[in-house]
């Protein structure tokens, strides 16, 4: 039986009807990983033995009739979420040998739901980047075109799902790190509302923005993973006590009565015409499905989101990453007796260039004399950006935008110019600033690009919801997915 590119619900059906065992399924995925990895490089760590052990346990559970939607289905965890006994590197030299003594809450919850963990995925170092090229370990390649980036920072997770190396994966999203790689790899990626999913055990980057979410082949799978990972956790004081609905209940194929807005500001300068056309065509499909669509929505302060983000995120990062001092855990520079020299050299050699750049930027923005001009100012503009979303959501149930202004770019194309790289997230950053949920779903391919092969290069559509409005954006995403059918295409590696 060919089990490549299965969705969670397809795998569940095979397991439930005993057409395949979890051990067989897991073995098949481990074999595929061996085949595909030399081309894609999505995994930092492959946990084959552990996965087979977990699969055996799952088969025992299934034999007793104890089977949930995720039981026995292989998944992949981004390497910034702690996994007990399995090294968690953040794709950084700083944590290359760090073996956490505990599981992140999301890992604990997925394990309790019966996840088989295939391994840990590559990422931009400490989740800082938009292409996974900032990994201190190696570069991940886009399965749709191996000469291009998979996006980032959750590029390993997205590439592995697209290449059929795993059924699903978890990513984290601080400014677009789930949605932009989902867009670049033509899969589904959801950044939940800030507070919806516990971040206990997620290596902190920017604490007022970070959120964990699923990367999956379709919207149904996204809802299934959200059911497993969402909800209050006493170990994360920012996790919300709001009740968690069954997210699969909102997946309906029509959009009667749903009010959608398309904010002009997201059709930015420098956006590729193929992306523009794909989103406009997508909006038309949403109208045909019964939604009312207005193009008369404006979020004028969107243009300041990039600056707000790149002040707030590095500021928080500079504080969060102060813990890497070579004393308690992680890389430690040993060739000195001086405490300060050891600390400075540990951080000099342990962090890569982008991480150091952001620590420096954040330290500057928080330093005496500049705090008011940069950090406080950014926090005030953040308030305005959130208010604009709140106002828009008085009229609309969801907003439709492109996920990224471009299709995947070439490896090496933007590494020399940090600001150019930052612009890749211009459509996703405002969502983290406001703390609202958003999903990216496949919305077509730019086939007119002369250099692209086969299907062309993936384009993603972003659907933004009000706080804790995940059900609405999942409904819109599901209806669109079923009508448009892009999810059926597979990256042939």
């Amino acid at each position, binding site marked *: 039986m060919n089990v490549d590119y299965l969705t969670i619900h397809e795998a569940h059906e095979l397991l439930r009807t005993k057409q395949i065992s979890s051990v067989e399924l897991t073995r098949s995925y481990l074999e595929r990983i061996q085949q595909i990895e030399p081309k894609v490089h999505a995994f930092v760590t492959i946990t084959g033995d552990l996965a087979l052990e977990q699969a055996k346990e799952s088969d025992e559970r299934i034999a007793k009739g104890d089977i949930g939607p995720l039981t026995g289905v292989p998944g992949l965890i981004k390497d910034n979420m702690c996994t007990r006994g399995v090294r968690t590197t953040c794709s950084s030299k700083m944590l290359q040998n760090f073996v956490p*003594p505990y599981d992140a809450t999301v890992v604990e919850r997925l394990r309790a739901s019966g996840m088989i963990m295939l391994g840990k995925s590559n990422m931009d170092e400490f989740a800082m980047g938009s292409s996974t090229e900032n990994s201190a370990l190696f570069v991940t390649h886009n399965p749709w075109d191996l000469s291009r980036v998979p996006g980032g920072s959750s590029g390993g997770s997205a590439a592995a799902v697209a290449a059929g190396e795993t059924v699903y994966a978890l990513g984290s999203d601080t400014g677009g790190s789930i949605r932009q790689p989902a867009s670049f790899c033509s899969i589904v990626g959801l950044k939940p509302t800030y507070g919806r999913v516990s971040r206990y055990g997620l290596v902190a980057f920017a604490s007022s923005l970070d959120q964990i979410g699923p990367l999956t082949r379709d919207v149904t799978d996204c809802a299934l993973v959200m059911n497993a990972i969402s909800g209050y956790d006493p170990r994360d004081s920012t996790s919300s006590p709001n009740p968690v609905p069954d997210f699969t209940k909102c997946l309906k194929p029509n959009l009667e009565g749903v009010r959608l807005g398309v904010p002009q500001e997201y059709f930015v300068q420098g956006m590729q015409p193929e992306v523009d056309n794909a989103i406009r065509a997508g909006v038309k499909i949403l109208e045909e499905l019964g939604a009312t669509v207005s193009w008369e929505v404006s979020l004028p302060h969107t243009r300041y989101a*990039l600056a707000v983000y790149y002040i707030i995120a590095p500021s928080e990062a500079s504080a969060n990453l102060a813990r890497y001092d070579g004393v308690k*855990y992680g890389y430690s520079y040993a060739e000195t007796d001086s405490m300060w020299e050891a600390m400075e050299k540990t951080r000099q050699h342990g962090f890569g260039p982008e991480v150091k*750049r952001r620590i420096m930027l954040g330290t500057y923005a928080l330093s005496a004399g500049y705090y008011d001009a940069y950090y406080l100012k950014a926090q005030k503009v953040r308030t305005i950006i*959130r208010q604009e979303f709140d106002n828009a959501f008085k009229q609309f149930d969801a907003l439709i935008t492109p996920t990224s202004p471009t299709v995947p770019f070439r490896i090496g194309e933007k590494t020399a110019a940090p600001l150019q790289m930052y612009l890749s997230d211009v459509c996703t950053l405002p969502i983290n600033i406001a703390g609202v949920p958003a999903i990216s779903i496949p919305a077509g391919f730019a086939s007119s690009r002369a250099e692209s092969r086969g299907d062309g290069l993936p384009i993603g559509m972003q659907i933004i919801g009000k706080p804790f409005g995940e059900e609405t954006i999942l409904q819109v995403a599901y209806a669109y997915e079923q009508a448009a059918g892009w999810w059926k295409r597979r990256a042939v590696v």
Partner: protein
Amino acid sequence: MKLSREEVLHIAILARVGVTDEEVDRLSEQLSNILENFGALQQVDTTGVPPTAQSIALQNVLRDDAVAPSLTTKEVLANAPQREEDFIRVRAVLEQYSQYAL
């Protein structure tokens, strides 16, 4: 807004990140470029606008001060670069301080 070499070095000390001469030059240029682009923020009228530190309504989340199982000393120390018995070994703090004091 141009960041001088001295300013970059000062930030590097605040952040405790060692930098080479080349890095100082590169960071001075890159950070200046980034900050210049962020200057646009100053155009926004934020009179009377309160700052937002985080985006959810939760405030002062409290919990009972209850005893619960925690990691063992062995597990906690397992990743420490230098250990001595049940302690993390650190370098001397005070004798070096005056040299690096800001």
